[in-house]
């Protein structure tokens, strides 16, 4: 019934209207197989709405979405078999132990008896829950709960994982461990589609991103490609001088591409608009005037910057 497609997620003109308001205003994008795809946007951008439509929990107003070539509206059951979905707020059955919890879900997914045990031990190993099997679910920490929920969605071995803000509420250490887990899953050939409003949390692991704001897609593509779009935009440099200098401002202002120079004692910062390969002009001009500096800092928080430049930051 479905022809194998190159992309695992295909979204076309997808629209979700609540009353008169467009929560998702007709977005189109593809997600390739085997990648980690970040779905990024500020609060109220429409991330959860899009994800719930993909997970067949909601019917869109117009357009369409396909998972593995299967329509999420007309064949929701088929779609559910192909993806594992983790909602933004996950509940667990308090009172069950970790093992009982996983066993319950292995039955709920109707895994054959012979495969249940091995499926559970596989996901337990993957998510590192081995030492907690007899612990009751309600005493687990937030990070461990998150792992347990991920383990549960992994039981039927879905090719696609859709995670809605999986890292929210995790401490930095748990976040890094969670990232490690996601890269491991990618290595196993799974596609991961995850949303977040914190850019830096995704940039180390994402292969591609979509940025959504007020229901509209403002950017979509491989991470490097989007980073290249930054080329035309400004980068901030910060240098620390060996000694205070009166001249530095006038020297810098003569170089084309430099703007917004500011000086605070020995700390000088300026915006650089131009190719990174041309920046040596600046260093050359400074050394020609014998202005020595000890350190250079490039604010290369690319994604953060990209995010700020692409979105207006309005929270809906």
């Amino acid at each position: 019934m479905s022809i194998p497609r190159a992309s695992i997620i295909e979204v076309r003109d997808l629209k979700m209207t609540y009353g008169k308001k467009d929560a998702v205003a007709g977005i189109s994008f593809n997600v390739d197989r085997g990648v980690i795809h970040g779905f990024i946007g500020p609060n109220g951008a429409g991330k959860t709405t899009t994800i719930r439509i993909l997970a067949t929990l909601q019917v869109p107003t117009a357009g369409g979405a396909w998972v593995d070539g299967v329509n999420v509206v007309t064949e929701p059951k088929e779609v559910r078999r192909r993806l594992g979905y983790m909602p933004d707020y996950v509940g667990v059955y308090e009172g069950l132990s970790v093992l009982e919890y996983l066993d319950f879900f292995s039955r709920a997914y109707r895994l054959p008896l012979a495969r249940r045990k091995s499926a559970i031990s596989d996901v337990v190993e993957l998510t590192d829950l081995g030492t907690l099997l007899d612990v009751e679910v309600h005493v687990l920490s937030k990070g461990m709960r998150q792992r347990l929920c991920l383990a549960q969605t992994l039981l039927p071995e879905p090719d696609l994982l859709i995670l809605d803000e999986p890292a929210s509420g995790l401490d930095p250490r748990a976040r890094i461990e969670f990232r490690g887990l996601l890269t491991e899953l990618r290595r196993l050939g799974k596609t991961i589609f995850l949303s977040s409003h914190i850019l830096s949390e995704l940039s180390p692991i994402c292969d591609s991103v979509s940025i959504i704001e007020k229901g509209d897609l403002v950017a979509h593509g491989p991470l490097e490609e989007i980073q290249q779009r930054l080329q035309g935009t400004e980068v901030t440099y910060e240098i620390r001088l060996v000694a205070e200098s009166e001249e530095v401002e006038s020297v810098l202002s003569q170089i084309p591409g430099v703007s917004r120079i500011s000086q605070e004692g020995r700390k000088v910062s300026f915006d650089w608009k131009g190719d990174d390969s041309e920046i040596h002009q600046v260093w050359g001009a400074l050394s020609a005037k014998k202005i020595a500096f000890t350190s250079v800092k490039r604010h290369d928080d690319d994604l953060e910057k990209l995010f700020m430049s692409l979105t207006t930051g309005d929270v809906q």
Partner: protein
Amino acid sequence: MISSLRRRPPSFAIVQKELILRIRRIRSLLIQLIFASIVGIAMWISSVTVLQGNVIETRSPEDHALSLVMIYFTIQIIVLGLIVPSLGAVSITSEKQAKTWEPLISTDITPAQVVWGKLLGICGVLFYLLLLPAPILSMTMLFGGVSLGSIAFEYLVQFLAAIFIVSLGIASSAASKGTIRSLTQISLVTVPLTAMSLGFLWAEVYGNEMLLLDYLEQNTIPWQFWAWTLTGYLSVVGGSLMSASYTLSGVESARDVPVRVLIFTFVSLFFGLIVLTLWPELSQASVAFTGAKPVTMDGEFGFICSVLLLLIPLSLTRIAGSETKVPLRIAQMHQRGLRGTRIGLIFLPGGIRNLLYSCALLSIPLLSMVILMSYEGNTAQIGTGASTIVGTLSESDMFLMWQCSLFLWGVAVLALSWFFAQCGFSGIFSGALASGIHIAIGLIVMTAVELDWTDSKVLLLESLSPPVLMLRDSRNFPQISPQLWNQFNISMGISIVILLSLGVLMARRRGNPVWAVKRPDLDRLYVEIPEEVS
């Protein structure tokens, strides 16, 4: 792998989980202890008081045993009435509130399996709880006098009652967003029910030193009673469980169709039973008292039927005013040409079918009345001479004609509710609005009649609200002027036509088809993947 996941034997995952969760809880252990000790203490106290009062000398040990058994089951019923409703009512709302619901239905478990699993899980624990103090009960066996069979029967009735209440609870839990709401709903039903059954037990059964089985043996129960009880019980339990699983399967699903078929079957069965029960009585009556006025349709029964016909439209406004959009799944099924959706067109929700279906339900009581009338035979000829239309008709025919105009009034009420739904109001709201408007008109008319306005004005006003007149002159329909009868029908007919046209107009404006099983508002949904978009 995907295809191998299909078609497995029924899943017991939910039952198992429910049992683990419920039995393990310390709370349930406490409940067990409290429950057993309440029963034990109550029976002990009653034994002691009996012994101290030296009643034991005047009463046989058998009587004493019997009274202990009665106390035992009375306490069980009270506990049933207190605990059981909440067990069912929280079953599904708790999952929704704990955010475990969506992960659960994202698995291969269907809503129906969840509902069955919950029922079995809850009843399993409940039966265990009810049987827990049974050892105490077995001590009464030492006195003799109470047969094992009657105790077993008592237990059977309690189990059936538990299943009944739990099913109702699950249904209300499935339909509610919060636990509080479903708890309130279910207590409104179960508290009076428990009180009534206790009242009956002590007034008729236990009070006469009997257990239920003895009561049944001593009183010959007519078969109609069993037919009614069985139909009622099965329809309520089956209906609750089915509607629970369909409510849980999403707004755009085909869930409404089976529920509508079920309601239709239930109403038909209900009125079929009324006809079957009344028929022998009526035919006997007309043989025994020819010419006189025995149990006739235009007497007491007629009055009851009229009141029924008055109340039924108000309860159907909710259906007539339900969502006017066809659920997506049904539109798709219909488009695919599924035969079931063609044959049972009237059961498909959406558009004017909502009105037609509710009118079909409304016509069932009318139909059963027509059938009943045909057995009664014509009682007496009347000739008021006031009108050329009804001048030479029999009383029975007159009565039927009035029922028909009452039916017409019902259709007008439903059409009003349907019209509000076309304007975009929700089902409950349009239903309440339509009922409210008609009740208000009724009150105004009643006031006007009481204030004795001039005849012509009253006549005009009265024609707006047939029910008021039916209730005022309920027992002598023929005396109501035929002129008024005409006026009723004309005003109701006109209002139906106006409401229908306005409704169709509103539906057009809002882009909802009136008859077609389509979803134009979702026509912009893609079925096939359009080729690459940038």
